[in-house]
């Protein structure tokens, strides 16, 4: 990442958060001043089921080191069933990425409710640590997109 180029490796994390639960959970962790690394960048989507596998691959291609998808807990989806579809899609996609030899810790799905600000921060800290251990994403990166 760009901030501490000379210091230790800081992974770039893209977090897709559903508007109703996880984005609100992220807001709550802000309201409660719970820290997590600034390399985590959140993209708001209406529901986790809006996240197309293409977005995830695109993020990796452009240099993200980890992608995490957050949605309402199963059964609590604002749209009733969106996260159930997400769960199947992401299970299969992550399994495929694993099959292609991509480090499995670079991807994750986590259910974070609007009340779980603490969980959101903890999840982001944990995930960042896990990705940090893996080092920079090289396997899915498009080298031409690399920053100079």
């Amino acid at each position, binding site marked *: 990442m*760009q901030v501490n180029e000379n210091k230790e490796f800081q992974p770039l994390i893209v977090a897709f958060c559903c*508007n109703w639960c996880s984005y609100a959970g992220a807001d709550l962790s802000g309201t409660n001043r*719970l820290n997590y690394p600034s390399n985590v960048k959140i993209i708001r989507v*209406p529901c986790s089921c*809006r996240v197309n596998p*293409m*977005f995830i691959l695109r993020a990796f291609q452009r240099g993200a080191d980890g992608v995490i998808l957050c949605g309402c807990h199963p059964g609590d989806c604002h749209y009733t069933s969106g996260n159930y579809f997400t769960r199947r899609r992401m299970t299969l996609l992550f399994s495929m990425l694993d099959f292609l030899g991509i480090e499995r810790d670079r991807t994750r799905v986590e259910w974070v*409710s609007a009340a779980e600000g603490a969980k959101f921060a903890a999840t982001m800290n944990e995930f960042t640590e896990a990705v940090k251990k893996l080092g920079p994403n090289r396997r899915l990166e498009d080298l031409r997109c690399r920053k100079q």
Partner: protein
Amino acid sequence: MQRIGVFVCHCGTNIAATVDVKSVAEALGHEPGVVISQDYQYMCSESGQNLVKNAIKEHNLTGVVVCSCSPRMHENTFRKAAAAAGLNPYLVEIANIREQCSWIHKDIASATEKAIILGKAAVAKVHLNAPLTAGESPVAKRALVIGGGIAGIQTALDIAEAGFEVDIVEKNPTIGGKMAQIDKTFPTLDCAACILTPKMVEASQNEKITIHSFSEVTDVKGFVGNFTVTIKKKARFVDETKCTGCGLCTEKCPMKKVPNEFNMGLDNRTAIYIPFAQAVPKVATIDPNFCMMMKTGKCGVCSKVCSVGAIDYKQEDRFIEQKYGAIVVATGFNPIKLDKYDEFAYNQCPDVVTSLELERLMNAAGPNGGTLLRPSDKTHPHKIVFVQCVGSRCDDSKGKPYCSKICCMYTAKHAMLIREKYPDTEVYVFYIDVRTPGKNFDEFYRRAVEQYNVHYIKGMVGKVTPRSDGKIDVQASDLLANEQLHIDADMVVLAAAIEPDKTARPLATMLTTQMDTNDFFTEAHPKLRPVESATAGIFLSGACQGPKDIPETVAQASAAAAKAIGLLVKDSITCNPCVAHSDELMCNGCSSCEKVCPYGAITYIDKEFKMPDRTIAVRRVASVNPAVCQGCGACTVACPSGAMDLNGFSNNQIMAEVDAICK
């Protein structure tokens, strides 16, 4: 050519203390298409909004990015401001640099850098925003109230008063809820039945109100203004339309050993029963678990004595479907089970009771006809110990982490009533804190101490041991005297914590509303929208949202009713324009999108297309009903060709954000 304005908010020091707002504005000013980039103290203030409005007019902006607090906070504010200045409100994007940046990071350099990146992502997205116009959808002029306690009754009465049809769904045979079980109410000590039962009757007689007692909501479909709800009318084996509530059947029923839930199991009822004298509807119900006729096929006494022929042993559950514009949840609370608190001997000793049981023991319609007697030997207790906070404010697995709010007051009430009626009785109250915020509440508690000589002891009971002589040894600490006490009590009353009703969780799932970790419904905003859920058209009334006493419950019930009425008076509501739409030229008509749509918003039509070779081809293509679509986006991913896309969160927009963040 895009002309984008960027507005960076300081939010006082909330943002400006950790994010260098000037450099954010400076950096975003260099982004492609950005023609003006400014920072300001409070962008959401009137002068801040004017700044945005003026810039839109002055620079003829085609898009606006506000770097400020969460879009959940002020997206609407800025959209309205843009609309007022003549810019389509959906050309506004918010970069969340407060909740997701300044509040979580301490280092100014990295927080500023992140704020710039978030701003860039918003700019990249706004480049691709399209002006959207909201459609309208009609509102069904009928409300559903789930739960028939005082909250539900009050809400229903208020909505009916405004002239709208209301249905109350109550799972028990009668409405009335917990308040019907309560003896007196604090801080005025008037009798609960005297103020509740007239309201119950009013509800039953109001022609706008339909009461579905002994019923449950089993399915909810649709969305604000257009809910379709399935209600299960459980078989009560008595024809509601015929039963006159004369009660002869309940007198004659030979099965008289059924624990009476209305009296907290402190006495018995018959297998066919009317919960209490003022029940509404006053209709008998057969409990099939105990009815001899239902279990063995031999008896039928009730059927024989019923002069109107209302008994129907073959009755089955019925399902009715109804359309509603608004739904009010009023599912209420229950005291927690005390099985896990061995130290209070609740399961070992009948003279250790919960406060709600004490209400019944003291109630004129209760098991002892209003005389306070020990359940074990029916003698008059001379020393009564009250224990506060049993299961409330607990950080362990046994109890609840929150304060149950009502216990301090009702314990003072109980103590006072006992001292009033039986001046020879000594009353001890063990408290951790006495919490009496409320009009005339502290005065009430002080009266218990000063006028009625109730012994309030700061400390907690550690152990309750029933003794062989019938007394109960209460071991407790007196923190102010710094000593350990042993009281030989005749009765111990536990102020059990309250929890949301168990039906609330599955209901929340059906309604797609959020709950907190304690299963209380979450309000849309803790301060500004306390009676609305985050799901449009679903309102919250009473203790389902959090512990509440009666005055508060009634106030909130009326507030929820006002919100529901505000919705029902509209003939139509503005829809969310961020809905899916399908590009017919690319649509395969494969039905994948239809399969994942939770609202049935997608249908297929056969459409003629002019082909390049001038022939006409008919193809099956998807068509989205924008009034029904809620904009989740499930279809967009199910669609392999990318024909299905979502307004406001299009593939290109999200991809642009990804690119901006990863650059």
